[in-house]
């Protein structure tokens, strides 16, 4: 849920990186933190176990001047991918404005991808919302590995709803496809915010696709 502070001229949005365990969600935030213009970034907080598995969530606050006259804050969170941490995933998903679903492109991870996507839908439904109401994009990660599924097969598994959403091939560890997904979801979030509340001049940013039933 966005927060508008007229006194500070700030608007804050929440974007969650969701997906199966070890798929590259934390790597996305690390790469954004490392590559973004320093004036746009805050401190990256990573709460991981000794095995580099996300324990609670990762958090990276970003600032943008994409909205004229306002400081736009985008708070990036990851969820822990491991199955046992579903309560934490529900907590992090609360009041989400946009989602980047990070799928692992390796053949043996296809079941994990679909289970995680289903889990995301279930958790959103529990919070009286649905994937059809939240702007989201898909990121097919680890495209540099040899044993990967073709994009059209991953589309068949993850992107076959009535409205197709933007999807990106990525190699997060090299920062490829990372900013593309972030910028697209950020623009989708802004477009949804404007449309839902009939703000601004009633126009949507171009090249934006929103999943909405």
């Amino acid at each position, binding site marked *: 849920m966005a927060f508008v502070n007229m006194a500070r001229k700030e608007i804050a949005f929440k974007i969650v990186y969701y997906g199966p365990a070890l798929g590259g969600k934390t790597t996305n935030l690390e790469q954004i933190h490392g590559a973004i213009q320093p004036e746009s970034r805050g401190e990256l907080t990573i709460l991981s176990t000794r095995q580099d598995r996300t324990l609670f969530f990762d958090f990276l606050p970003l600032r943008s001047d994409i909205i*004229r006259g306002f400081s736009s804050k985008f708070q990036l969170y990851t969820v822990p991918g491991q199955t046992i941490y579903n309560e934490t995933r529900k907590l992090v998903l609360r009041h989400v404005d946009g989602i980047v679903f990070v799928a692992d492109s390796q053949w043996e991870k296809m079941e994990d991808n679909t289970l995680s996507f289903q889990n995301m839908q279930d958790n959103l439904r529990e919070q009286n919302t649905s994937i059809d109401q939240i702007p989201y994009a898909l990121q097919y990660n680890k495209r540099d590995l040899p044993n990967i599924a073709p994009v059209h097969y991953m589309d068949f598994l993850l992107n076959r709803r009535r409205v197709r959403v933007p999807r990106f091939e990525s190699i997060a560890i090299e920062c490829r496809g990372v900013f593309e997904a972030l910028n697209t979801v950020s623009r989708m979030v802004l477009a949804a915010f404007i449309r839902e509340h009939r703000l601004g001049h009633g126009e949507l940013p171009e090249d934006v696709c929103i999943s909405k039933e």
Partner: protein
Amino acid sequence: MYYSMTRELSEKIETLLSDLLVRAEADAVFLCDRGGNIMAQKTTEHYVHEENIAALAAGSFFATRELARLIGEPEFKYIFHRGDRTSIYMQHTPLDMLLMVVFGKASNPGIVRLYAEETVRSLAPHIEKIAGPDETVGLNIEIDRSQEPFKRATEPEKTG
């Protein structure tokens, strides 16, 4: 759905937070939502990473709700994290928000709790006005289409 807070409402809330800061002899007072957005704050200390502090505090506070449920409680009303030099007190407020007080050795948990509970009662009618869309806000959003929301410090090398 979004929250909105007018300038007038923000000033009223910040006045109450200032009172708490002084009376509790605290270092910082934050009002944040359960997503970790800082709605209002008053501080004597400068915290560089206050957004991270708010996000972690909100996450840890609301995670304890499940813990409370498992022992038959609807929720814990407040939580203390006690440190050697600096401690944190967190209390639930209406609209599922969180009042967080950071304090050092100049104060003590009893005083902080006393004044924080009083402040939450005073804040309640104001917090309930934090809701949107508020027609009085007259929000007019204009997107800068000439740029991407986020840019790299340096563009990546082209390959292939």
